[in-house]
């Protein structure tokens, strides 16, 4: 038994109180972990946005369409290396509104070239190029519906009904993975030519463009040049960096970071009071014992260290298990993949969490530790153990 044995024995003195305090800390850090995962879910688009890509949409609104002919014209703008169009298809599986996911028609080769974060095996890519009704799906989406390559998947779209009046028929020809942890793998991409041929209206129109620029440092200038190219036309554009576009999307919900910081600050302030009260009570109850320790030769510094260590062990036991539980929960994937396709606890949030555990332990234990350190031994011994 060195110091740690003494610390652990002291924590076992009031088992219920220690357990309840640890439980509070545990819950706070589970909440911290889940909120960090939530923040990541909201801002993943911003984080993984390509610095060399722009989003070009209709100047009035994202829901207004642009001509498919704009693509080649954008590629003529100096500084643009490629342009690729997207259209929001709003596919629904099995006519169940809850079976909704991101569904978009794209030009396969250009899409995979411009978005290297979507990793598709070469053989699957080859088949996608061959099959007009072929579609590729992200790993998360495939697992959600248990789809396998070769499965035939009928989708309906309230925006883009099939000219036949029936459902759109697709064949799963590939399952893509994300090159990065924050990459969204809940998408469903199919061929634009199949889409344009089958839709009942709006032929030749697309939703928005992704544009790759040669030099990310000149992205703003290229964006202005694109907007200038289409100024005073029936379809004026608004071009902006992909990150800014994603950020704007997130801000429609509100300032997520500020909201999360406000919630966490309130939680941690409360937990600090709970843990601090526990430690203060623990030290007050042990005045005579602290006197005994000092009497047998424990110096003031050692007594300070013992109380701080006790506080740290208590917060670490609650906090680290809380972080671990949050990590385990998020490792299972998103509980609502349709709404939050990207859902994981980032490593930097875990590191911040560990730092907060340590800070909480020190903050909760500091005042009681200082009072124990300053306690005159003769005064302390007047109280009975």
């Amino acid at each position, binding site marked *: 038994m060195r110091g740690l044995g003494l610390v652990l024995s002291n924590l076992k003195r009031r088992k219920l109180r220690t357990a309840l305090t640890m439980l509070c800390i545990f819950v706070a850090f589970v909440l911290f972990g889940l909120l960090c995962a939530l923040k990541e879910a909201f801002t993943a688009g911003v984080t993984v946005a390509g610095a060399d890509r722009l989003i070009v949409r209709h100047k009035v609104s994202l829901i207004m369409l642009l001509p498919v002919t704009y693509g080649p014209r954008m590629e003529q703008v100096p500084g643009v290396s490629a342009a690729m169009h997207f259209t929001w298809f709003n596919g629904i599986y099995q006519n169940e509104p809850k079976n909704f996911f991101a569904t978009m028609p794209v030009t396969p080769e250009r899409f995979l070239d411009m978005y290297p974060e979507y990793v598709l095996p070469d053989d699957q890519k080859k088949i996608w190029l061959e099959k007009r009704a072929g579609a590729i799906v992200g790993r998360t989406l495939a697992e959600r519906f248990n789809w396998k390559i070769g499965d035939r998947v009928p989708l309906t779209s309230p925006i883009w009904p099939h000219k036949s009046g029936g459902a759109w028929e697709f064949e799963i020809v590939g399952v893509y993975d994300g090159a990065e942890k924050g990459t969204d793998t809940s998408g469903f991409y199919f061929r634009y030519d199949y889409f344009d041929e089958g839709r009942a209206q709006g032929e030749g129109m697309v939703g928005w463009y992704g544009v790759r620029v040669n030099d990310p440092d000149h992205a703003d200038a290229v964006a202005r040049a694109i907007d200038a190219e289409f100024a005073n036309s029936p379809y004026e554009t608004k071009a902006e960096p992909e990150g800014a576009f994603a950020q704007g999307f997130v801000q429609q919900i509100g300032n997520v970071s500020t909201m999360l910081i406000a919630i966490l600050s309130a939680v941690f302030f409360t937990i600090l009071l709970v843990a601090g009260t526990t430690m203060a009570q623990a030290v007050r109850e042990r005045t005579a014992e602290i006197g005994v320790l000092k009497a047998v030769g424990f110096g*003031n510094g050692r007594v300070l260290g013992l109380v701080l260590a006790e506080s740290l062990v208590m917060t670490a036991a609650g906090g680290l298990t809380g972080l671990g539980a949050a990590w385990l929960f998020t490792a299972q994937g998103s509980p609502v993949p349709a709404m939050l396709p990207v859902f994981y606890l980032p490593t930097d949030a875990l590191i911040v969490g560990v730092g907060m555990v340590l800070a909480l332990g020190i903050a909760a234990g500091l005042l009681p530790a200082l009072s124990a350190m300053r306690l005159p031994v003769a005064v302390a011994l007047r109280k009975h153990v």
Partner: protein
Amino acid sequence: MSERNGALVHIERVNKTFRRGAEEIHILSQLNLEVPQGEFLALMGPSGSGKTTLLNLIGGLDRPTSGSVRIGGDSIDQMSNRRLAAWRARHIGLVFQFYNLLPVLTAERNVELPLLLTGLSSSQRRRHVEAALSVVGLTHRAKHYPRTLSGGEQQRTGIARAIVTDPTLLLCDEPTGDLDRKSGDEILALLQALNREHGKTIIMVTHDPHASARATRTVYLDKGRLSSEKPE
């Protein structure tokens, strides 16, 4: 570590004053005391006479308002808090009236406490603890928590804790004050044996003439002054 004249404890013109609001309370006045090495000294006196305060000064648990306290040549009233704590660990064993055992530790862990401040390995500490518990006759209760020990057993554990580092000086504050006569006698016999057989210098504060009779010398403290005669 006795001084040249043979006294282990050398207290010279010690004053101790406490302040309560605007009032100054003089507990010890110009007090002188010498305790030779190997003596078993009983310190008697009425309640509030300053016996425990004097014991605290000798043990380095408190500091005199003025005067000097030298133990074995060390002027402990001049030491920093840090040095004083280290000095206590090395030279002082304390036995308290209410045992002051840590309730969350077993008897052997309580006895081990002062050894945590030494560089001894776990197995060396275990050997020292076993030896101390065997001196007080409590080896069979080593794994028991204080709440499961009788008062006499708890006090013997306290004595084992006090002697486990082989201190220069054993200070006992009313060691039998919370015990029945039989248990008290056993504790006194143990202290006497530690003095006679192990050569321990002991200063014992007591109210009990029966306890002081076991000592080799008795001094009386009254109104802040020491005397070898029992005050009227």
